[in-house]
């Protein structure tokens, strides 16, 4: 099955699910009488920004960064998950799932509020408040503040940019910052920047929806116990529908 077929299959699945989702009426915006035009339509957008292998001589990881929203122009339900898995050690690294209600508050911005369930390395449950959107100069921003059950405050900010080498060959630098407001002894978290990631990916859009890429990531991790930094090669695919 070619990539296009795969996308088409996903699309047809989506269009079959859509009437069902409409019927469920899970958001107070669903029903609209038959008009000449229906500008309050529900759309759903699945986007795997990163599905990749990342590694160097010591380290082999599979990483994902996936988001999915469903809703109309103003109100959306947003799911986000990211994490990594080490096949060598059969363990998950940072892995979580967020479920957010998202409200369009400005031309380019959504305000998001909801909950996060972190699975690994430790199960936690956090409240989430964030902003997602497009900053001037086309900088993609995804930011969130997490407040744990114990009242600990953590933050995450990621910034992305796209530079067109050609209409389909795109160089995408990206920075992600994870911070903690204070030391969290039992988790070994040290106040300040707990993780810094800077990467560069070169992707080729075979279709807009399907783009394999290569690149590298520089990662720095800081905890109460140790400090790591490493350079890793990445190879993966970006896909959406």
């Amino acid at each position, binding site marked *: 099955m070619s990539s296009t077929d795969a996308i088409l299959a996903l699309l047809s699945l989506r269009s079959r699910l859509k009437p069902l989702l409409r019927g469920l009426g899970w958001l107070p915006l669903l029903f609209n009488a*038959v*008009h*000449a035009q229906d500008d309050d*339509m529900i*759309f759903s957008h699945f986007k795997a920004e990163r599905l990749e292998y990342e590694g160097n001589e010591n380290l082999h990881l599979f990483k994902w960064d996936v988001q999915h929203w469903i809703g109309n122009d103003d109100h959306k339900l947003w799911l986000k998950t990211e994490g990594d898995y080490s096949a060598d050690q059969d363990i998950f690294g940072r892995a979580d799932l967020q479920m957010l209600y998202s409200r369009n508050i400005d031309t*380019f911005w959504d305000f998001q509020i909801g909950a996060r369930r972190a699975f690994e390395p430790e199960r936690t449950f956090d409240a989430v408040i964030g902003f997602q959107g497009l900053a001037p*100069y086309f900088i993609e921003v995804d930011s969130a503040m997490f407040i744990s059950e114990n009242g600990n405050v953590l933050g995450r900010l990621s910034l992305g940019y796209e530079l067109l080498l*050609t*209409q*389909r060959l795109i160089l995408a630098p990206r920075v992600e910052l994870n911070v903690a407001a204070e030391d969290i002894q039992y988790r070994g978290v040290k106040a300040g920047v707990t993780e810094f990631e800077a990467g560069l990916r070169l992707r080729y859009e075979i279709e807009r929806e399907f783009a394999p890429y290569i690149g590298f990531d520089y990662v720095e991790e800081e905890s109460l116990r140790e400090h790591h930094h490493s350079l890793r090669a990445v190879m993966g695919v970006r896909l959406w529908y």
Partner: protein
Amino acid sequence: MAIQHLFHCTPIKAKMWLPPLVKAYALVVAFGPSFASADTYHLDISEQSVQLIGKAQQAVVANRGLPAPTLYWREGEQVNLQVTNHLQEQTSIHWHGIVLPYQMDGVPGISFDGIAPGQTFTYQFEVKQSGTYWYHGHSGMQEQQGLFGAIVIAPRHQHQTADRDYVVMLSDWPEADPHRTLARLKKQNDYYNFQKRTLGDFFADIGRLGFWETLSDRLAWGEMRMEPTDLADVTGATYRFLINGRTPDMQGRYLFKPGEKLRLRFINAAAMTHFDVRIPGLKMRVIAADGQPVAPVDVEEFRIAVAETYDVLVEPQTEQAYAIFAEAMDRSGYAHASLTPREDWLAPIPTKRPMTLLTMEDMGGGHGGHERHGQSGAEATHAIHGERLLPEKQEGQHTGHGEAAAVSGDNHAGHDAEPNVEQQVHSGHASSAPMDASEPSVPSHALLSYQQLKSEQPEHSLMGAPNREITLRLTGNMNRYIWSFDDIKYSDAEPVRVKLGERVRFHYVNETMMNHPIHIHGLWQYLENGNGMYNPKKHVINVKPGQTATVDVLADAEGEWAFHCHLLYHMDTGMFRKLIVEKAGYVLH
């Protein structure tokens, strides 16, 4: 007057796009009942497989034709149109530009309930006008799926005579299901733009303009989060551009004999595409806009916005094939057919021109110092034409017309719509000389502008102050692909209410970077272009990026009318209003 609206085409090609039965039917429609004085018309709306992009796709069509059959009416005729829905979904037909009782206008949810599957709806009204119009579906995306056809109404009193009379119907045909196209735009608004500026363009601009100038330009656009190449939301990346339902590969042909006068009725039935139309080597005399006669203007080229119609006269003198060439405004593709004295002669495809970038002026920002891109659209090309009406000796430079691009490089850096414009002007001059000599009274222009449209008939009620002025801002959120009036989508908006008999002056203030062809059903819009009571009346007014257009609307027809941008995906995402014209003391809803 001989009316010939069918394409002459090779049998193989004909089979490819229309079964013979359809041709037979079309003939019946054209020369049978509808052209005779009989006044009942039948349109059967159904799904049909078409082959336009090399694979079978489903279209929604009327009488199994794409485009639907041309309807020939007479001014004063009482038409009776029976439209039967053979689809699984609701359908409707809207008679575009036709003045009629609002219940017959054909907009589901506004003027009637739509036509349910299996049902027949009978439209009945008196034809009170003449000229070139069209009809199209107003349900879902059916217009984009092939449901459109031409309307030609013979006037009670003949104005212009022509030896041949042809409909030239332009449209855009998508590769994907239109609902998917919309979904893609919602998820990534620049999905179809494959002409964005790249790193290479950045360095090229540095070479041309210097580093700081280039950087400040990029920063200005970046600050707004917009792209100057954003001329069209849906482009040739998915569209094939058609003339009378045929791609350029299908080689549509219009026949003529040298010396004849031809009337070409251009109709832009595209869902999303403005076209720049020219017939290299021939001067076009514009005689009607949106069906209404205007004082003749000779032009080399005109831009036809979505849903507009223009009638032009051409008089080819030489035994050669001419290209009817309609480039998409963003230059991402073109429609092409041949105007030819012989079935087996095809016109060459003219050199395509590079796209024009939007400027800060288009954004309404008025930031100075950005003129280098040339002004947008019409003016830019106009200016270029102006400075390029050069003596014939210049022709010598252009041996090898094909490589004209190389010629312009040095002297004309910065102007985007270059080299073969020049070619047009020259060839145009050569062949049009006799016409100029015989009728010197008609001014000649390189490119038609709205300023030149002047109604043939005066409308006295345009004099004096209007009863009311309404400013309507054309707004949008390109990033989320939401379009609106006054920042309010149709589903959240109250109708616009005016009183029967009022003259309302609308100011359309375009705050976006896109062109918006604004259409009011059932009422004329008199474009305020400085001609007083000779201001032209139109059913569609194209409002350019960052500009304001003023129109007078005589609210002379009671009822509930649709009022919207005619770009299908703009209308569908909210750039739409209900316009209610009500008698004093009587409230419609």
